């Protein structure tokens, strides 16, 4: 089930809110049980058989949490717990990729009569998110950052809670453990949650889905592509992935607020970044901080005694970041691209070392171009397609500079393209702050009217159009 679907907006959510708030606040356990059951139902809706994996994860991590807390001096328990989660991930997400590459290696070294058969295992939705959440819980218990959760239902609620289940943000147990047993739901918070949800819905349905139409066409054009279409497709995908993912995060944060939970922000206008390092402090913040806290820092981070170790640590983090995003070489190359760029920034000190504003400005453009080219690698179906697309962007392998298809896709989507570009920068925040100084009620009215309009238009898109892809569902 998607947040951006009529069944979620008009059936699942209203029923859940009704049941949840009918239960008196003093029966918090019952409320939590309802959230758990609805979360499991939410997950089971798309593919009922995946619920077994979810339940397995909950039971396994519950047991490991208890064991880690009991046998704190034994590293075996934490290692086994982490391995348990990694194993789930490897089996369901990476096994076929591993098999494929082993078979390739055998073929290259001349062993042609040995071929491991690919499995029929299907990727469970959100597995990368909830396994990482589970790992963070176990490590935090081990580090004594949090108390172990002895109520399996509460732990189950943390791991499976539907707002963040399928596409993040990756919520730390420490961020919500208190809220599980003692949270405050207020009308104001609820209103903020609704507004956040609606804005997220608009980002996803109105902007991301329309950009997807351009990107899908551009990336499937092949030899019929033009240079202009290649650039339009790359820019469209850059906007699509941002509004798709940040929109979903907005909806998750908004939903959390409706039930009294406060999640951290997952995006902070990443496309205004002045450097690659800054980009990764603004993009998918929960993932970046997860790798920082659970991989980079344990390896020593940047406080190591040699540059070799620093580079090693960065390599591991960015290799894993690439792998986390998908079982395909282009994701790995995408991750390693950022390894190279970030290593350069860390070792050189640029762009902070630039003396002149023009240099900083040019580096900013370089950053944005790197991000866009990176998204091309991310989006393409394999490295060959990625290289071919990148060549198209510089005029190699295209039939012409532009054609009527480019004109059609550009003109049909020019308003949404412009809106996407403008909304990628904190322009609304700027105007909101300006207006708030002058007239509080006016800004509030604008907010509510905007919410209403965005909701109606978004629902009209959902009702009309069956095209509603969600990129980060593959993770």
């Amino acid at each position, binding site marked *: 089930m998607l947040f951006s679907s009529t069944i979620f907006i008009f059936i699942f959510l209203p029923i859940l809110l009704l049941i949840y708030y009918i239960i008196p606040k003093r029966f918090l356990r019952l409320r939590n049980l309802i959230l758990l059951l609805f979360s499991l139902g939410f997950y089971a809706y798309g593919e009922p058989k995946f619920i077994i994996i979810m339940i397995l994860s909950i039971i396994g991590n519950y047991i490991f949490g208890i064991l880690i807390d009991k046998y704190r001096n034994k590293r075996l328990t934490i290692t086994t717990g982490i391995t348990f989660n990694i194993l789930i991930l490897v089996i369901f997400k990476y096994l076929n990729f591993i098999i494929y590459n082993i078979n390739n290696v055998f073929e290259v070294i001349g062993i042609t009569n040995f071929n491991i058969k690919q499995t029929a295992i299907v990727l469970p939705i959100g597995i990368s998110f909830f396994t990482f959440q589970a790992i963070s819980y176990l490590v935090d218990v081990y580090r004594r950052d949090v108390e172990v959760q002895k109520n399996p239902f509460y732990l189950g609620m943390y791991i499976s809670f539907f707002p963040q289940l399928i596409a993040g943000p990756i919520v730390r147990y420490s961020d919500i453990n208190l809220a599980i047993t003692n949270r405050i739901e207020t009308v104001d918070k609820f209103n903020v949650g609704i507004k956040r949800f609606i804005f997220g819905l608009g980002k996803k349905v109105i902007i991301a889905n329309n950009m997807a139409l351009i990107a899908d066409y551009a990336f499937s054009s092949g030899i019929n592509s033009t240079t202009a279409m290649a650039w339009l497709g790359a820019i469209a995908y850059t906007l699509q992935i941002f509004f798709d993912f940040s929109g979903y995060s907005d909806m998750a944060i908004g939903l959390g607020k409706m039930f009294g939970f406060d999640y951290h922000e997952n995006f902070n206008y990443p496309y205004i970044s002045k450097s690659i390092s800054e980009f990764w402090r603004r993009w998918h913040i929960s993932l970046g901080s997860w790798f920082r806290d659970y991989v980079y820092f344990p390896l020593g981070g940047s406080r190591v005694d040699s540059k070799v170790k620093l580079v090693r640590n960065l390599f591991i983090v960015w290799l894993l970041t690439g792998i986390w995003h998908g079982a395909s070489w282009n994701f790995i190359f995408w991750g390693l691209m950022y390894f190279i760029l970030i290593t350069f920034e860390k070792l050189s000190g640029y762009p902070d070392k630039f003396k002149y504003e023009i240099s900083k400005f040019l580096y900013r453009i370089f950053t944005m171009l790197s991000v866009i080219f990176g998204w091309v690698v991310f989006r393409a179906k394999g490295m060959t397609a990625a290289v071919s697309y990148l060549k198209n962007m510089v005029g190699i392998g295209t039939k012409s500079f532009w054609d*009527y*298809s480019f*004109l*059609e896709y550009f*003109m*049909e*989507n*020019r*308003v*949404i393209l412009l809106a996407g570009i403008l909304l990628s920068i904190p322009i609304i925040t700027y105007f909101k702050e300006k207006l708030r100084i002058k007239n509080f009620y006016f800004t509030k009215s604008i907010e509510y009217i905007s919410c209403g309009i965005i909701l*109606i*238009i978004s*629902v*009209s*898109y959902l*009702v*009309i*159009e069956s095209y509603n892809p969600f990129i980060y569902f593959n993770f």
Partner: protein
Amino acid sequence: MVNINGGFKKIIGEKIVNGAILGSENNLYLEKKTINDLDYEKIDKNINYTKLILEYGNKNGINTLFVQEPDKYKEEEEYLPYNKKIYEVDSNEYWINKLSRDGSNILDLREEKYNADLFYKTDHHWTNEASLNAGKAILEEFGLESKTCDIGNYEKQEFQKVFLGSLGIKTGKYYIGKDNFEIFEPKFETDLEGSFQTLDGTIINKNGDFKSTFIDEEKLHDDEYNNKYSVFLSGGIIENIIINNLAENEEKLLVISDSFAKPMVQGLSLSFRETRFIDPQEGRYNKSCIEYIKEYKPDYIVVMYSRDYDENMIDEDFIKYENYLFGMSE
């Protein structure tokens, strides 16, 4: 929600909306027509079956005529944005060329002189006025008196902004608004009996004058009902039988066509004792047309197809065609 969606897309300047394309002069066209999916093997089969009907008619002394409907989609492409091409225009030419090469009697209503090239902005159908002009052209082609289809002998009743056609329902009413819709009623006396079979198989029997027999007044005056084109023939489409009690002859007309014939047979029926109209598209009249002719024994046959029709004719009919091909000597 369709209306809101279409209204929003109008505001942001989209010209391709939910499967419809906004062309010049605020006309809507079907986006699907810009895809080259013509199946010439199937088209050839349909042309052959059409020829069979025409040959059978001619062989049995029936005046037969193939009528090429006017086409909202023209050969020149400037009326569509982004240099889009309409492929079925090629199909129409293909039909005409093949049929005329084999000596079939053809009336091409695409010619400007027939003034049948009038279309609704939000629909794929021609206007009521165009259909009357077409009826007049057909009668003249048959060498018959055409006053029953002369627009000068009709009173026009126009309804403002009431018709949201097959393309308009894709974009919603806020995209380009609704079409005006007109009903033509003869100034002369009429007395008719009609049996109209609707799409769900229901047979509606009506009698009286022209308007009370042919026009579904309930739908015509219903503000919530958008598809005003279906008020013609009281909603009938599959098999429609019209008896003209004031006919000056005892002749019978058979029209084998699609929904373009709905308003057209209303006027034509005033020149014949009995008029029947069958729509052989899939899910409509799907028995053998040849058998129908054999049983009905019309004096005149009009075969009129549109670009969609040629891809909808069912194979079952064609199997019978192959049987007749070998039985043509009977």
